[in-house]
């Protein structure tokens, strides 16, 4: 056991290297399972699916670093999707409907943030409530109907190809990764995020505007959810009350797999991106191997538990 720990100790500085190794092994296994997996077309196509989860995971990383969590992201996707689809169906020009959708996503995030900061409530309770509230509003407002008669150009967000191979939304994701990475590692705000996660009380007494940072984070993830929801709606070309159902599991799993401690204080954007890639590879590979989607949920559920367990196990060893 001690030899194994020593090896792990040496690799402690680069969890990302380990994750990269896992990703490569996973891709190798998947390419054995299905000859279709390791084709350029499929690999690029996979990126179509992880952009939505990826965008939300970026925001979730910062929130989990502060020791918080947002369970409502999947439901918020449904709410934004319905907001875009049904205001469009009601006669609003589509560009305005999209802007409205983004505002709804932001407002939903702000609502979470205000509830959490003004009442000093634990985010998991608040977002468990809004998980049900947003989902219910999406069902209720859409009257369990779907909208899918969008104009052709709407497909641009989720179905466009650049140079015929690269999915368009990949650029949005890369841009978002760079922006969030810069914020987290190069700004004062980013240091505040880590400070709050390490010791909220100490951060507060050191003059960190804890409430304002949290408010910004929960609103920020709302905006990212809005973007993800527009891409999602465009990709499936349908606005429905059950869009994004259960996505919070993918998002949280990706972040935790990427090494962010669920207790706060640690986590990186690089780790999260690798986590997102691993989950996307896993999902895609399982689809190609003909595993039903319900089983994928099982695999993800177990993966989430194993990842959190290993994280905390090694953290305690190191201390």
């Amino acid at each position, binding site marked *: 056991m001690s030899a194994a720990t020593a090896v792990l100790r040496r690799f402690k500085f680069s969890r990302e290297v380990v994750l990269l190794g896992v990703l490569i092994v996973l891709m190798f296994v998947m390419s054995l399972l299905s000859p279709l997996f390791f084709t350029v077309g499929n690999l690029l196509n996979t990126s179509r699916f992880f952009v939505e989860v990826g965008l939300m995971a970026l925001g979730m990383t910062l929130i989990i670093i502060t020791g918080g969590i947002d369970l409502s992201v999947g439901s918020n996707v449904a709410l934004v999707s319905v907001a875009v689809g049904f205001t469009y169906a009601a006669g609003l020009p589509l560009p305005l409907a999209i802007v409205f959708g983004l505002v709804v996503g932001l407002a939903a995030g702000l609502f979470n943030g205000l509830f959490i900061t003004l009442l000093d409530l634990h985010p998991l309770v608040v977002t468990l409530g809004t998980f049900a509230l947003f989902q*219910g509003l999406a069902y209720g407002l859409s009257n369990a109907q779907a909208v899918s008669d969008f104009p052709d150009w709407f497909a641009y967000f989720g179905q466009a190809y650049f140079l015929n191979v690269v999915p368009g939304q990949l650029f949005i994701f890369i841009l978002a990764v760079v922006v969030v990475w810069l914020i987290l590692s190069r700004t004062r705000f980013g240091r505040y995020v880590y400070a709050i996660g390490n010791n909220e009380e100490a951060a507060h007494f050191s003059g960190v505007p804890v409430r304002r940072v949290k408010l910004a984070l929960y609103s920020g993830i709302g905006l990212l959810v809005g973007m993800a929801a527009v891409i999602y709606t465009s990709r499936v070309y349908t606005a429905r009350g059950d869009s994004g159902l259960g996505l919070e599991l993918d998002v949280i799993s990706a972040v*935790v797999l990427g090494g962010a401690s669920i207790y706060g204080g640690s986590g990186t954007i690089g780790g999260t991106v690798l986590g997102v890639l691993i989950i996307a590879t896993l999902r895609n590979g399982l689809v190609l191997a003909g595993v039903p989607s319900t089983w994928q*949920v099982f695999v993800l559920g177990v993966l989430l*538990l194993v990842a*959190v367990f290993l994280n*905390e196990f090694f953290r305690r060893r190191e201390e």
Partner: protein
Amino acid sequence: MSEVQAPTPTEGGTTIGTGLRRWLVRPEAPALVFLAVLLVAFSLSSDKFLSGSNLESILVSVAVLGTIALAVNQVILCGEIDISTGSMMGLCAVAAGAVATSTGGLILPLLTGVAVGALAGAVNGLLATLGRIPSIIVTLGMLYALRGVILLVTGGSWITGIPDETRVLGTGSVLGIEYPVFVLLILFVVMELVSRHSTWGRNVFAVGGNRRASRLAGLPIDRVRFTAFVLVGVFVGIASIIYLGRAGSVQTNTGTGLELQVVAAVVIGGTSISGGRGSTLAALTGAVLIGVILNGLILLGVPGIWQDAVLGALILLAVATDVLRRRLLGDKS
């Protein structure tokens, strides 16, 4: 009650004032007041509401929810949470249903359901205590993992043809009370006694109220929390038999979304989500309140698709009230 030992009042009106104040600081007081207001409001707006059969059908409809809420109440009192009960109920119902269709009887399916539930609860408990994973993450993972196990076991098909003798807990009645209500009330009395008079019951409050102090006082905090998670499994197992009796079949999506209703019932009833404060009566009141609200919405003609939104709003309302009430009462904890 302890009102008898209240300090001697100096003025005439103070005894009633103290008594009322004492009652108002009880965790379930706001929920009971709210319940009373709702009962009056619904019976004024719909003459069907206050009929005996409607009231009993409300209680029957919350039996599954209430039974599970009684146990999850203990988990929340410990300062933990369990959001895996929806899938757990589905799995228990599948296991009990499979046994019922092959052997019949009531005892064997009941024991199966309880055993499967206890096993799932033990996994939750082990991961949350020895694994040191926050219970929200443990039970979120289990919510999805157990749903996968259901699909593995059933292969996606329904279990139908549950024999009548197994269904008795859902369909029969005893002493003029329908069985689901009877079981719920029995379990309520049991939990009330356990919570007030057993060592474990008192330890739950201590661990939830101040975990560090409890550890320093030598309480077995891991064992107390583990037991609470297993208890949820046992109660979910019992609830799954009531469900089997009422529904007569099991689908792969049985129990979906139940976990939210359960948590909502507990916190709406007045048990504090941060642990240490609450009561068994709070869980029961919360469950009945949810039953009344859902029933009232139907009578008022509100479409069922708004259920989730109402539930979410109620959870938020309940936790906000809890915080504001504690601020008003000057309770710093």
